[in-house]
């Protein structure tokens, strides 16, 4: 049984106020693939991302992570399989110290203390933040916070990583570090981003959303050479 792919089948979602955010969205991300989710503001990227972790459930259609359908009874398993990194690191980091934040997921998984300790070491090492372990998140720079945010989900050893605007508000060096870290992952990745450079360097494939619909799903190189599509997305004039 592989948990390493995500499949959306005819997913529609409407918010309680009636706004339809996703219309008939279908795609499959295979094991180990790194896929970018592109689209203008309000296209439905964040709504789609929240579906991968079961924070939102489709109004109609089906989301599967591996062989597991995303539904209420499977949520604990889904949240273990899909690591979701939010756009704003301040929302992601809520515990008093970095190590407690990184330990939050594994402790919720009821892992023994020794295993939790190992997971913290492993996750902080993966993002190069071992020396920040005892620090309070509020004392970290923007780039460090972003890396620690990623560590908080890596510690749960997810099969799939979902990142919402990972490079937003980062300076050049922090961004380069982040691209290097994401590139080193072997996880199945879904990355929502407006950062063309990051997408070109990290993702082999891109899905383009507009008004809650998929308007393109092709190799990244093809997407960025499609002048009409770029114009439609407002990336060129």
């Amino acid at each position, binding site marked *: 049984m592989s948990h390493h792919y995500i499949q959306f089948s005819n997913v529609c979602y409407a918010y309680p106020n009636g706004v339809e955010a996703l219309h008939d969205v279908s795609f499959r991300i295979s094991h180990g693939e790194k896929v970018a989710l592109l689209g203008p503001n309000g296209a439905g990227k964040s709504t789609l991302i*929240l579906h991968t*972790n079961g*924070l939102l459930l489709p109004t109609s259609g089906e989301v599967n992570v591996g062989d597991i359908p995303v539904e209420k009874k499977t949520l*604990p398993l889904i*949240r*273990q399989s899909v690591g*979701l990194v*939010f756009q*704003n690191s*301040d*929302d*992601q980091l*809520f*515990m*008093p*110290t970095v*190590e*407690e934040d990184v*330990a*939050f*997921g594994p*402790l*919720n*998984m009821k892992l023994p*203390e020794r295993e*939790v*300790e190992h997971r913290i070491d492993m996750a902080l090492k993966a993002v190069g933040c071992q020396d920040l372990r*005892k620090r*309070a998140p509020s004392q970290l720079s923007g780039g460090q916070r972003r890396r620690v945010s990623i560590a*908080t*989900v890596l510690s*749960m050893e997810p099969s799939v990583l979902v990142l919402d605007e990972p490079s937003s508000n980062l300076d050049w060096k922090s961004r380069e570090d982040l691209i290097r870290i994401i590139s080193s992952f072997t996880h199945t990745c879904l990355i929502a981003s407006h950062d063309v450079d990051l997408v070109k360097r990290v993702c082999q494939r891109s899905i383009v959303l507009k008004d809650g619909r998929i308007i393109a799903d092709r190799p990244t190189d093809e997407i960025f050479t499609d002048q009409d599509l770029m114009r439609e997305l407002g990336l060129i004039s």
Partner: protein
Amino acid sequence: MEFRDQAVPPGINSCALLITTICYLIVMLSVSPTGISMLILFSIFPIITAPICGESYLKIMLRSLWVLPFILFIGIFNPIFDKEAFLKIGELDISRGWVTFASVIIRGLLGMQAILILISNDGFLGLCNSLRRLKVPDLLITQLQFVFRYLLVMMEELQNMRRARDARSYGRDTYPLKVWGNMMGQLFIRTVDRSQRIHAAMISRGFSGTIPTYNNYSFGWSYKNTLYVCSWIAVFLILRLINIPYYISLVTASHIL
């Protein structure tokens, strides 16, 4: 809130400090409303414990003054309603109401100082961990943790809004009531919004109702802790049961005579 790697004083864990503080509060608050001289002696606990825990007493005392307006509000009606003469200093009659008012202020400040020392020792979440180890129900502790967490969220949002307002205020210090009203409404909406995002982040990492604790330092109970707690309880009982101010006055009077 500053977080420390291990509880101080060395060898004394947070549970011992928590138990001592609870005993202190119970004994100190049981002093009669007019026993001001006895209450003053109880300041020995924060004065000694603050430096042991690595804090300056002056700093703790100044911080405790933040709650003074609330304490004043609690006690302010005593002098108004209780005008019975209680003691005479020279020609000045002092009513029982003024004495109990002073007693409320001393109790409030001493209580606040003890709590500040407790929190500065191990942080608020450390305090919650200690409560959990003392078998206080999880539901109550989680509520406390959420109140603390969302209070900080609200403060952060307020700070952001103040910054945005000041950036466009061109040096203006005062604002009409309408602006404050709008800000309060916005603050509420932004705080709820932010809280929802944080809650989503917690749920996405498997949160199911109890904030888990992670401590990689020893929390063992040693004889030092027992000694620490028992010594302080003995001191509190002596201060409470023996009328030390009376004996001090006797000794002073015999010296004068």
